[in-house]
């Protein structure tokens, strides 16, 4: 066996690290051995055959990688539920932080959307929007995952289901957003308070629907169908409360910032609304720590 074949086999071995860990543990060495044997046999005939064997292997690898990773996800990791328990204070804090960062990112993206619109085609822009709008729920899910102390693999499941909820929410709210755009186009015909009311109601409708689907996605990740129903409702309430309370708090804060700095940064509004929505979500999901009961005191056997 030549040194070049040994080198190629080593590279192949490195590529096999892309397979799930369990698969690697079970088959990696065997696969490298068979691959090396294939190359050694091809080398006896011609160098072209060696190149062909490598190419053939490379072409087949991505599909099999995908199949194997999907099978890992299918095999319980994605559907499997686990018992979760959030301490209320930590859940509030972490969910609020996740949501806040996510919503600020949406706001930042919103400021560059016109620039992006000049560069990207419409479908790509919509895709970017869809992805960005999944960020708050994904971050919130990750934070809740940290609070619940879930395993490393569970984060993938949480991320995927939360993103699925986010995408679904974005798609479902499409008609509401279209109506809102149509209303805003006739902004000149409204008085200031009518304009603000319409804006708030649309925002409420969009974000409550979002909250519902985002919550459903998170719930599915954390507790299967049962969690899905529970989290969906909590998500809706959290967003409704977060928006209403956040909107009024943020208006007051923004006007004060404007007074002092001469700026009215919209990310303040969004971060307050996000933090409140996340906080409410965390509050509903978390549990108060039960005081430790002394078994001796409980039974009265002093």
């Amino acid at each position: 066996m030549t040194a070049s074949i040994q080198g190629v086999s080593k590279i192949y071995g490195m590529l096999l690290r892309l397979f799930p860990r369990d698969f690697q543990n079970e088959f990696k060495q065997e696969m490298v051995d068979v691959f090396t044997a294939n190359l050694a046999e091809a080398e006896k005939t011609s160098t072209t055959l060696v190149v062909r064997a490598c190419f053939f292997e490379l072409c087949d690898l991505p599909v099999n990688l995908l199949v194997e990773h999907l099978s890992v996800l299918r095999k319980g990791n994605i559907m499997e539920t686990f018992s979760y328990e959030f301490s209320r204070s930590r859940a509030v804090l972490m969910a609020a932080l996740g949501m806040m960062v996510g919503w600020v990112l949406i706001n930042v993206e919103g400021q560059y959307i016109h620039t992006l619109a000049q560069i990207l085609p419409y479908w790509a822009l919509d895709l970017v929007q869809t992805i960005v709008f999944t960020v708050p729920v994904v971050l919130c899910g990750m934070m809740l995952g940290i609070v619940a102390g879930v395993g490393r693999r569970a984060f993938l499941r949480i991320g995927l289901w939360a993103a699925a909820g986010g995408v679904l929410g974005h798609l479902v709210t499409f008609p509401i957003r279209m109506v809102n755009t149509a209303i805003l186009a006739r902004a000149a015909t409204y008085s200031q308070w009518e304009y603000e009311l319409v804006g708030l109601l649309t925002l409420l409708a969009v974000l409550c629907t979002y909250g519902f689907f985002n919550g459903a996605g998170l719930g599915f990740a954390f507790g299967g169908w049962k969690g899905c129903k529970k989290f969906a409702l909590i998500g809706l309430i959290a967003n409704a409360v977060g928006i209403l309370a956040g909107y009024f708090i943020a208006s007051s804060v923004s006007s004060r910032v404007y007074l002092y700095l001469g700026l009215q940064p919209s990310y303040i509004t969004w971060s307050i609304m996000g933090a409140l929505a996340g906080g409410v979500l965390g509050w509903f999901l978390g549990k108060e720590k039960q005081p430790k009961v002394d078994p001796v005191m409980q039974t009265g056997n002093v």
Partner: protein
Amino acid sequence: MEPSKLKDISPLSETTLYILVSLAYGPLHGYAIAKEVQALSKNRVILSVSTLYTTLKRLLEDGWIERVGEDPEPDEAGRPRKVYRLTERGEFIIGVEKKRLQALLALVRTRTVREEK
């Protein structure tokens, strides 16, 4: 096996069927399975290593094949090679697939004969 479960597994993919049939002659190690499949299919089906092992993994999980120790003859690097064998369940699956293919063939033959007439 329940008929509903049989519906889920049949028809088998060509790769799966060839691997099962290659093991029907006796236990083989991975490299030998690949070569046997190539020979059985007259060089039509050439398995990549990743396809071979992802399929073997699935067959092992389904209990259609099993590992039976190591080949006494080591590979070129001197490492022992793991040997795979068809299980009773695997043999049963081949039987089911054989019946399905025979029925299909009979149907095609009947149809062709009618059309010829």
